[in-house]
């Protein structure tokens, strides 16, 4: 009988300067530098970068990369379906819905019956624009910790949409300008506004037009969408318009009549953060799991090892340790070396 050395999770995947690397599989996951073969969890720019040799991702993620970076974003591409198993080197990989944005996936890498799941970004609550998070049992779970503090409990997003619609009814003479990340958050918010019965036109900042049209082309009903730049100021009274968060404070807002500044983000849970940005109507809607979601998911995976990336690692590592799980932070390059405040604001603007 051949001598079979027991596989450890770190023999399957380990953090390197370029990102999570599988030597025995011959690939990286969400690499931050150009690599030969990249597996991409989802289309957000901190995970999906241009310039890799070969890219393996869901069809939606590939489409989004093409939309953002142009046709030459990678040497070659290969689409993979959720649940489909693929042999790569000495590993077997499969993609599973992460519930984060359209096309987002957790990537399961297995070798010698040991499974490591890199979850990318995820949330365990309903989102009409993407498939629900699928629990994958594993030995090691790599989790994000964007909202890894027990003060982040996001609540029911439908109540936040109701808050927005109440404010629209209360101020019919004003425009409601809603900051939302262009990929995912904007479309989810629109779909939820529609689900709440609001059927008037919704206006878009030009920067989110292409990606929103793409969502619509994938069969997600977003109703009557128009562009802010085609509308006259008076027409915008009493309307809802979506824009990237960074546009909430710029000159662009002057084209609206007395705008109410709203922002849909998990960061809005903390008052000082909302006030710091001058937000008048904070909406706590997040595409990341909140504290309860993170801890429930970690427990449910059955993983005995937890690696924490992205954000407030310390608290989540502490929680895991208390539960008897081996946990450690993965200091993926680009995180943790900036000024705390600046990093927070930057990441809130990037995707929250």
């Amino acid at each position: 009988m051949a001598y079979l050395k027991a596989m450890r999770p770190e023999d399957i995947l380990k953090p390197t300067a370029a990102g999570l690397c599988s030597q025995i599989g011959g690939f990286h996951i969400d690499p931050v530098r150009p690599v030969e073969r990249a597996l991409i969890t989802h289309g957000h720019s901190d995970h999906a970068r241009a310039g890799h040799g070969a890219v393996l991702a869901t069809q939606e993620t590939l489409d989004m990369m093409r939309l953002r970076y142009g046709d030459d974003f990678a040497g070659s591409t290969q689409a993979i379906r959720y649940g489909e198993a693929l042999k790569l080197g000495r590993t077997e990989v499969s993609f599973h819905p992460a519930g984060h944005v359209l096309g987002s996936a957790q990537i399961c890498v297995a070798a010698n019956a040991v499974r490591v799941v890199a979850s990318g970004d995820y949330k365990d609550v309903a989102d009409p624009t993407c498939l629900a998070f699928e629990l994958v049992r594993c030995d090691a779970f790599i989790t994000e910790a964007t909202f890894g503090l027990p003060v982040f409990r996001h609540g029911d997003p439908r109540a936040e949409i109701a808050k927005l619609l109440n404010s629209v009814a209360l101020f019919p003479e004003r425009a409601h300008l809603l900051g939302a990340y262009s990929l995912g958050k904007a479309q989810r918010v629109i779909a939820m506004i529609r689900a709440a019965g609001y059927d008037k036109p919704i206006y878009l900042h030009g920067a989110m037009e292409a990606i929103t049209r793409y969502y619509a082309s994938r069969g997600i009903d977003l109703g009557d969408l128009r562009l802010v730049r085609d509308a006259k100021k008076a027409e915008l009274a009493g309307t809802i318009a979506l824009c990237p968060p960074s546009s909430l404070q710029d000159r662009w807002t002057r084209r609206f009549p007395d705008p109410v500044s709203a922002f849909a983000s998990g960061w809005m849970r903390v008052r000082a953060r909302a006030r710091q940005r001058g937000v008048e109507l904070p909406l706590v809607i997040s595409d990341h799991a909140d504290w309860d979601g993170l801890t429930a998911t970690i427990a449910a995976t059955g993983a005995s090892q937890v690696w924490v990336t992205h954000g407030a690692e310390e608290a989540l590592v502490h929680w895991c340790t208390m539960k008897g799980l081996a946990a450690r932070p993965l200091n993926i390059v680009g995180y943790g070396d900036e000024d705390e405040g600046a990093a927070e604001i930057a990441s809130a603007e990037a995707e929250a």
Partner: protein
Amino acid sequence: MNRFAALLDRLAYEPSRNGKLRLMTGYFRDTPDPERGYALAAITGALSFRHAKPNIIRALIAERADPVLFELSWDYVGDLSETVALMWPARVGGGERTTLAATSSLSNVVTTLASLGKSDLPAQLAAWLDALDETGRWALLKLVTGSLRIGVSARLAKTAVAALGDKAPDEIELVWPGLKPPYTELFAWIEGRAGKPVNVDPAPFHPVMLSHAIEEADLAALDPSHFAAEWKWDGTRVQAVAGEANGRRVARLYSRTGEEISASFPDLTDALTVDGAIDGELLILRDGRVQSFNVLQQRLNRKTVNAKLLEEFPAHLRAYDLLAENGEDLRELPFAERRARLEQLVDRLDHARVDISPLVPFSTWDELIAARADPAAAGAGGDAEAVEGVMLKRLDARYLPGRPKGLWWKWKRDPHVIDAVLMYAQRGSGKRSSFYSDYTFGVWTAGENGDELVPVGKAYFGFTDEELNDIDRFVRNNTINRFGPVREVVHDAAKGLVLEVAFEGLQRSGRHKSGIAMRFPRISRLRWDKPPHEADRLETLQTMLRSEDAATSVRPLARAASAGADS
């Protein structure tokens, strides 16, 4: 509680003054008595709950959350009440939630807290926190700890009440001292259902009148015959009020913000044997000489008053205005008449602990300039050391609360001292690395939404080790934001720490938003007694800068010398 919580929540996010007024007026219009009255009391800071201290809240959350997770969360959020409101475990099921929430109206919370014993408080608070949602929990905790911090001054809240009827905010100010929560007679009067409430307190506080800063160059525009001048004393401003009701004599001492400090100054309240409201300076006199502010500070800092303290630090009132006498309101009279009445009253009182602040005689500005340059020769005599400038008061000025334009001017002796407000604190280095010892401070300027603080400098010396401890504690307890090693501390009109900053000169600076940079600023004194809104304004610095520019031809050498001494 829910409506009140929703109001606070919206106020906290509403940036504009008008928006805040609209929200409050709407709330006062739609909310019945006594609920709205308690809300008004909460917003104006008229409520305080003896037993409800932050440590009770910390103990409650300690029973419900892991200590490490709590510390990390608190560190992140920066505000204790908000951290606890967010972390408080949600009730599963929540069947009784609505009924409980309904019974915990603001009125119920306020009246329950007022009568509850210390030992019953934690359980009652926990029951309310279980029943409320996140916003409700936040509002409740803000309320009981007495730190709403929603960017609404008492004045703005009264303005919102005034807008319910056709009243001017000042009319409310005048009756306010005699009123108590829930202010039903106030609302009845404003809504035209009853007459004006009468001031029943025999010794009420009268909101103070404040001055604007002035420089020598500004004098030319003023007519000296319209003004009286007094010394500006280096003490702390107080209001001494005495009266009688139902045969009971009442004498009280108030701070400039209306906080009663009688208990700390029995030697002074005993001296108030005639009825009236005196505006004056609290000083320590030894052998008839005014002592330095440092000496006064030692008495102000003392919590318990004993015979030894009273003997070593005898309190003295130097009177400069009279706001009421024998129940008659004098504030509508011109300054000259009030001054004459004050002189007679102090004469009649004839008490060693109370004297009158003398007028500085002058008929031309040149004479006043000379007097200010040498107070000892101009009548201040042995007390000249305690003179920090002169006050100019228009002879025909009524006594108006707030900072009316053109009536009172302060002309400080040393132009290189300002009162600024602490905005950010940073950890020091070396042996100070465990302390927040680098301070960024700001002064007021008109912003888009009313006055705002603009940073004008940074200082990291000039204070004693004991003062460093005090500031450090203040920073830790009043952090509203964190940016790595830097903490932003509370700095609104009502709450914050005023620093007296001394500096060597001013320069124009493109690097600072204020356009001004200070040379060698240092903390010269902590003004715990001063509310932030009384700190200096950017215009004062700009005026100093202009006179600095005019004087540069003769100053550089002197500056270089003192700069060397500092570093």
